[in-house]
C-alpha cells in the first residue's frame, strides 16, 4: 500500500490564509466550493457489485479522491444459543483499514449501530426455524482511506453489498434441521424490494448559512459543524456531530439538514439501486 499523505498523517492544519479564503467562499450566496460543485453535488464515484464469487453479496466503490472500499457479506447457519445476547449479535461487522491498527472500533460502530435500527425487519428474515438462525458477517475493507472522512464511503458500499446479498431458500419445516434449495436462482434477497432498505450515512458540513454534502477534507476543516446524517428509506434515523469544527448548530440548520438530506438520499438510493443494472 502506498504510504499515506504526510499532511494527513501528522494532521498539519491548514494555513490561516487558506482557511479564511475557504470560509469566505463557502459563506457566500451562492456559495463557491473549491471544486465548483453545487452544495448537494457529490464527487463522481465508481461502483460495482457482485465482485467476489464466494460471498453472498459484495460490492466495491472508488471515491473521487482515491478512497477505495470493498465489502463482502457472508452468511453462516448458527444454532440458537441460550447464553447469547439475542438477535443483536446475529450481524457481525468488521472494518479493516489497510495500514492502520485494527483496534479502532469507532468506524465499525458507526455502521453497526445504524444497521441494527429497530423495526427494520432484517433480524426476522435471519430466523431459520426454531433452533437455527443465519449469522451474517459483513467484512468491510478500506483499501485506501479517502482524504475526507470515510463514513459515507463505508456505508454506501455496505448498502450496495447488502442490497446484493442473497441467502439460499429454506425448504425444510420449522422444527427440522435446516435444509436449503440448492438452486441459486431461487435464493432470497436479504433486503427484498419494498422492504426497508439498509441505512446509509451522509456527511453534511455547515458553514454559516449554507450546508454542503460530501465535503472534502478542506471543507471539513473550514466548516463550523460536521454532521453525520443516517438515512433509512425516506426517514432520517440519526444525526450526530463529528469531531472538528467549532461552535454549535442552530435548530433551523438541523431542520434544513434533515429536509435536504432526505431529498439527496432519495437520489443516492435510486442511483445505487441502478448499479449493475446497466450492464
Amino acid at each position: 500500500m502506498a504510504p499515506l499523505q504526510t499532511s494527513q498523517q501528522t494532521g498539519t492544519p491548514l494555513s490561516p490564509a487558506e482557511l479564511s479564503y475557504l470560509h469566505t467562499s463557502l459563506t457566500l450566496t451562492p456559495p463557491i466550493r473549491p471544486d465548483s460543485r453545487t452544495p448537494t453535488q457529490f464527487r463522481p464515484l465508481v461502483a460495482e457489485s457482485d465482485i467476489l464469487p464466494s460471498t453472498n453479496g459484495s460490492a466495491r466503490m472508488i471515491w473521487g479522491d482515491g478512497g477505495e472500499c470493498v465489502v463482502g457479506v457472508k452468511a453462516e447457519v448458527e444454532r440458537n444459543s441460550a447464553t447469547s445476547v439475542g438477535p443483536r449479535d446475529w450481524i457481525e461487522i468488521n472494518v479493516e483499514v489497510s495500514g492502520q491498527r485494527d483496534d479502532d472500533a469507532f468506524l465499525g460502530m458507526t455502521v453497526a449501530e445504524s444497521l441494527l435500527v429497530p423495526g427494520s425487519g432484517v433480524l426476522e428474515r435471519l430466523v431459520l426455524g426454531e433452533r437455527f438462525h443465519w449469522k451474517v458477517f459483513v467484512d468491510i475493507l478500506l483499501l485506501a482511506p479517502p482524504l475526507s472522512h470515510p463514513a459515507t464511503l463505508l456505508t454506501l458500499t455496505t448498502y450496495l453489498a447488502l442490497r446484493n446479498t442473497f441467502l439460499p431458500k429454506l425448504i425444510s419445516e420449522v422444527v427440522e434441521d435446516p435444509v436449503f434449495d440448492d438452486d441459486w436462482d431461487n435464493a432470497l434477497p436479504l433486503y427484498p424490494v419494498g422492504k426497508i432498505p439498509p441505512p446509509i450515512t451522509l456527511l453534511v458540513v455547515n458553514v454559516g448559512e449554507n450546508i454542503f454534502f460530501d465535503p472534502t477534507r478542506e471543507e471539513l476543516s473550514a466548516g463550523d459543524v460536521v454532521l453525520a446524517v443516517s438515512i433509512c428509506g425516506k426517514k432520517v434515523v440519526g444525526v450526530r456531530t463529528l469531531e472538528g469544527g467549532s461552535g454549535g448548530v442552530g435548530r433551523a440548520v438541523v431542520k434544513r439538514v434533515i429536509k435536504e438530506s432526505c431529498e439527496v438520499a432519495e437520489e443516492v438510493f435510486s442511483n445505487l439501486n441502478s448499479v449493475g443494472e446497466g450492464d
Partner: protein
Amino acid sequence: MPISILPPQPAQYLLPPDPDSDRENEKVVLDEDGDFVRMISTPRKRSKAIPIVTPGEIVTSDPQWMRGHGTCLMRGRDSAVDGDDSDVNKLLSVKPLRARYTPEIGDLVVGRIAEVQSKRWKVDINSTLMAHLLLSSINLPGGILRKRTSTDELQIRSFFSEGDLLVAEVQSLFQDGAASLHTRSLKYGKLRNGYFLKVKAGGIVRGKSHIVTLEAANGAGEVDVILGVNGYVWVSKKVTLQAPPGGESITRLEEEASEAIYSNVNEDIAPVTRREIARVGNCVRAMVRWNVRVDEEVLNAVYLSALELEEMGFTEEGGSSNGPECLEGEVGRRAVEAGMERVREANSKARGMVE
C-alpha cells in the same frame, strides 16, 4: 443530479500521453492497471515479456549489466520499485510508475510547514523526506541585506508557523536527498489570497516557467497559478505590489514589501474571482487526471475550452443541474480534449506562418 455513479472503466479510457514529447523513439503501451508504460520501440535483445517489474523480481542475472536507479544487487539483480525497466547500453534501471517527488536543485516547489525548530522549519514538499528551510535563507523583514539575529530566532513563528503554505526554490540537497529550500526573492514566500490543491507528483513536469498568469474571464482580473514541481499547486488572485506614491527606488519597494510579506490576512477577493480560481483549479486537476502536460500554453487553452463548455451549457447525459463549472469526470475529459485540439491548431497555424 447530485450524485453520479459510474461503472468501472477499461484501461483504454484515459487519454494517451502527449505525442509530441521529446521521447520519440519510444512507443507507449497500456498495462493492465491502466498505467502508461513507455517502451523503447527499437528491438531489444532481452525478452519484452517483462516491461513491468515488481519489487523482489529478478530482472536479470547476467553479470554484463550495470546496476542503475531503482535496482539493487542481491544474488541476481532485483528491482526495488514498481515500474518499467529500461536499459541504456549496459545500464539497467527501473523507473517507478508512481513515486513521490525527488527534489532537484533549482526546482520551484510549493510546501507546507510541518514543524518549527529553533533555527529552521521542516517543510512538507511531498517528498520522501521533509525539506529544510533555514532561518538564514528567508527574506527577513526590514531590508534584504540584514543579518539574522537572536531576536529573529525567538520570533521564528511570526514568519512561518505550522500549516503555513509557501513557495520556494530548492537551493541545495543534503547527503540523504533531503532538500534545503530558500525564499530569498520577492517571487517566493508565504502564500495568500488563493486556494491550494494537490495533484500527483509526476503530474507536473519541469518546464520553462512554473508561475503562470491567466487572464480570467467574466471580469475576474488576473489569476496566478504556481505549479510546484512536487505536485502542489497554488491558484490565487494576482497581487501587484503597490509602489508607494512619489516614485521611490526599487530597494524602498522591497523594504515595504517585506514588512507585509509574512501577513496572514487575505485581501478582498470578489466572488467572480473566487469562481474563476475554482475553475482554474479544476482545469489543473482535470489535466493531470487525463494525462496532459501542464504548462502555460495548454492551461490557457483548457481554461478557454472549459469556459466555452459552460457557455454551451454542456450537461452530462441525463442530468441538468450539475454545477456548471464542475470539471469532474466526463466533462473534464471533454474540456481537456478540446483544449489540446486548440493547442494543436495554434501550433499548425504558427508552423504555416513560418513557412
